[in-house]
Structures are given as structure tokens and as C-alpha cells.
């Protein structure tokens, strides 16, 4: 078990997400940075979608009440175990009684703590992911609080085999304070003229303060629609770049509504969503760059392949 000793910000339990229920209006949820989340799980020998702890915009301190192996991945945090500081992207052995803490440290927004065996919270509608607006999933559908107790599942291998592994540097995402993120134009690119599409693709857009797990709003050159900002509601997914009437793009994130009625100029590709997720609201900016579906899928496959092959004994 882990006990929560101290916590602030957006600390939740997330697994790979609630799939199959969008048709009923249930968002997928799951991690904001799916790359770091998956890597953290693979490092401790879990299936890539096992339930892990996500921390954003705050800090957390926990105490292990049993021997276990953990891994931390993401950006913007440093990991301390007992009296030592460990780098992210490593798996580490933790003895019963030791404290584990994530402290804010430089660029980045989200970090993941995985534990061999996964965090054992009940499945709600087929998933352990927390959906804060719906008040369900994770631990009682809410943010973690001081005093919470997190149960641990059964590790896949002996703790000795799972500890002291690392994801090689070359396999990690190129996080940056001003990333260029690839987008696939559409499905409503025809609601914007060539000039506005070029504005979207050539300008710097700053992540706005009013951003959360549902979506990142951006401030930048205003995009004008052809024929207004209304669309008959249709399904949408994480990465969709909606442009509401005010002309400022919103990129839908993990708690993305299942449907929406604003034109979508583009979608951010799977491989680059982690780069965008790690940008700090009110501070960091992104550039959007056009790519093709084929190139985006090849890039994503290569990234995932590199992750699988990049886990080695440290």
C-alpha cells in the first residue's frame, strides 16, 4: 500500500482510459501524456495500460507500507525516495516505510508514478481512470487527498528483476518549452480559407491559463471561419483542434467531451500529443505543422517501437 502524506494540484489515478463508452457520452479520460504513462508502466513490468498515479500542477508525498518497485516518468518533476533523488525514467526499489515524493522542478506539467502490479482501485464502467467532472473512477472519482490509501496489485516478476531498469535517453520524447507539433488538417479545414490555415500553421500559439485535463486553450492570431462557428454536433477525440466563435483554438485533451459543435481545423498527431501536454499554461507556446496521416502513423509506430526496445538494465 501507499499512504498519501501530502498532496496538492491534480493528483489522480489513471489507466489507459475508458474505451467503448463514448457512444453513451462518457469521455475516455486516461493520461495526459500517454508516452510517459506507458513508459512508467513498462519499466516496472506492468501491461502498458495499468493504473498509475498522475500528478500535475502540484506536488505529492507518499509512504510505502510494503516493499515495492516504482518508476517515474514525465516532465517537470524530480523524484525523491527516502533521502535520495532519482532521475525520471528509471525503476527503483522502495523499502516498506520509505517516503516517495514528486517535487516540481523546471519545465513540464505532468509526471506518472507507476508501481509494479499497478494501483488497485475498483473498475468503474470498465476502467480505473478518474473522470473528475463525472465524479467517478480512480479513487472515489476525485483528486487524491491526504490520508488516502492506495492498494497495489501483484507484480509480474520478482521485485529484484524489475528494479534498476531505465528507458534510454534516445527513446524519450523531445519535450520542449516551444515544441513544434504535427497536425493533420481537417475534418473541417474547408471552414477556413487558405489565408487562415496559413496563419494557424505559421504562428506561435501560447497555452492559455484556462486549460485543464479537458482541453488546452491557446492565445494567438485569431482564426476566422467561413460561414460561422456552428456545426451540427459530431463525435471528437483527444487532439482535435476546435475553433470556437472567438477564433482561438482549443486542443481537446484526455477528458475531451465525446461530441462537440465547433469546426475542427486539424488534429494533433498521437506522437506529439505528449509534447503539447507538457507545455505550461500561461507560459509555453507551440507551433503547429502540417503532416499526413501516413507520416503521423509511421512516426507513432516508430516511437512506440523505440519505447519497447529502449528499456534496459541501468
Amino acid at each position: 500500500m501507499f499512504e498519501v502524506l501530502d498532496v496538492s494540484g491534480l493528483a489522480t489515478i489513471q489507466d489507459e482510459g475508458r474505451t467503448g463508452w463514448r457512444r453513451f457520452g462518457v469521455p475516455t479520460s486516461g493520461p495526459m501524456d500517454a508516452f510517459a504513462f506507458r513508459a512508467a508502466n513498462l519499466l516496472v513490468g506492468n501491461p502498458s495500460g495499468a493504473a498509475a498515479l498522475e500528478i500535475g500542477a502540484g506536488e505529492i508525498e507518499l509512504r510505502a507500507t510494503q516493499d515495492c518497485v516504482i518508476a517515474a516518468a514525465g516532465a517537470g518533476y524530480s523524484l525523491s525516495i527516502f533521502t535520495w533523488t532519482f532521475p525520471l525514467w528509471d525503476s527503483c526499489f522502495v523499502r516498506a516505510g520509505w517516503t516517495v515524493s514528486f517535487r516540481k522542478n523546471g519545465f513540464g506539467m505532468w509526471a506518472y508514478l507507476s508501481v509494479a502490479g499497478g494501483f488497485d482501485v475498483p473498475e468503474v464502467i470498465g476502467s480505473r481512470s478518474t473522470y473528475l467532472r463525472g465524479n467517478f473512477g480512480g479513487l472515489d472519482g476525485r483528486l487524491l487527498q491526504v490520508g488516502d490509501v492506495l492498494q497495489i496489485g501483484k507484480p509480474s516478476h520478482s521485485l529484484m528483476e524489475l528494479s534498476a531498469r531505465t528507458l534510454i535517453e534516445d527513446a524519450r520524447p523531445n519535450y520542449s518549452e516551444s515544441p513544434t507539433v504535427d497536425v493533420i488538417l481537417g475534418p473541417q479545414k474547408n471552414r477556413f480559407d487558405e489565408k487562415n490555415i496559413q496563419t494557424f500553421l505559421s504562428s506561435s500559439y501560447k497555452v492559455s491559463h484556462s486549460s485543464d485535463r479537458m482541453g488546452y486553450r491557446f492565445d494567438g492570431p485569431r482564426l476566422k471561419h467561413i460561414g460561422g462557428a456552428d456545426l451540427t454536433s459530431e463525435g471528437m477525440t483527444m487532439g482535435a483542434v476546435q475553433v470556437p466563435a472567438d477564433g482561438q483554438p482549443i486542443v481537446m485533451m484526455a477528458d475531451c467531451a465525446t461530441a462537440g459543435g465547433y469546426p475542427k481545423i486539424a488534429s494533433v498527431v498521437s506522437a506529439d500529443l505528449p509534447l503539447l501536454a507538457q507545455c505550461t499554461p500561461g507560459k509555453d507556446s507551440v507551433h503547429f505543422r502540417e503532416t499526413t496521416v501516413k507520416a503521423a502513423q509511421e512516426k507513432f509506430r516508430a516511437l512506440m517501437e523505440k519505447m519497447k526496445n529502449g528499456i534496459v538494465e541501468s
Partner: protein
Amino acid sequence: MKPLLTPFGDSALLIKFGDEIDLSINRRVHALDALLRASPQNGFIESVPAYATLLVIYDPLILTYAQISDWIITEMDRVEKNVARKPRRIQVPVRYDGEDLDFVAAYHHINAREVVRIHTSRDYTAYMMGFTPGFVYMGKLDGAIATPRLETPRTRVDAGSVGIAGAQTGIYPIASPGGWRIIGRTSMRLFDLTADSPFLFSPGDLVRFVIEAVDV
């Protein structure tokens, strides 16, 4: 209109059957949705039917865009020949005592009983679900009771409230903000986290409102 396939990012694809809220277009959406789900291709994750579109989400580690679209186009040829889908029918008992019932009646210069009679006199198709988990958008309403939304949405509408928005009718599954004109409420539970199937409705169902009580 021939359905149009468009990439939606690198792990989804949008099939567009039309632009507007229309029953015959929506039926085609649900027919294809049912067919895809009946024999899913490996790598198909889920589909989201809406008014005039079907969003298909797939795993780009398993399927390329060409592979998923080829599969859908093949299935689409089958569906256009075979549209005899039998939707599920659900009856919803309603207490017609909503706070906007009198407004809807006055808006159309009829009395509240007439609003109730018209509301209960036809089957509605569950066009799509969304907004909140379990919220169901239904139509099409008789023009004689179609009424615009509130100018300022309420900050809280109770679970079970039955409302009207334009030519649509719907039920709030959980308490939430909302701008629909509330004409009544049902005691049926639309959303139960602890149940094996947490949702009472599915997109494409046929819904009939029946009078439990009228309070006029």
C-alpha cells in the same frame, strides 16, 4: 448524399452522411454503426454515432488509414442494401409538471394538456448521446411543440428532467446545468454506475413517452 470519409487525426476517421438534423440521415448513421459493431475488424476501437456523422476510432499501431477505410467502404456497400435494422423500443413514464410546461403551451397558444398529448403521440429516435454521460438527444418533435432553448441556461437541472430544445426532446441523466425547456420528469434511472449496463438508452433506440401524471 454518398457518405464521405475524412481522416480525423491519425487514429480516427469521420464518416459524414449529411449536414443537418434529419431522421433519415440519422437512420443511415445507426445502420452503419450497428453493422461495424457486429463484425469489428481487429484494431477497431469504438464508434460514436451523432446526428449526421459516425466517428470511428481505431488503433494506428494495428491499422493504417487505408485499411480501416477499405473495411468501412466494404461494410457501407452492405448496409445500403440492408437497412432493415430493428431498433430497441423503450417506454418512459413522465410526470408532466415541469417548470416550463406553461411557457411551451403559451408559446404555441395551446394548453398544457395539448402539449402533453402531442409530446406522447409519437416515437422518438435517440439520435445521439453526449453532453453528460447518458444524456440522450431525441427527435423529431412535432412542430406544434418545438420551442427554443432558454435564453440563459439554468445552473442546475435535476436528474430525470424531460426537456425540449427546438425540434428535439431529451432527458437529463444527472443533475447538471442546462438550457432546455423542462416539461416534466421521469423517475426512471438513466445512468447507474453500479449496474452491468450503466445506461438505460443506447443511440438509435426508439423512445415513447407515456403519461404517468399531468399536473395542470
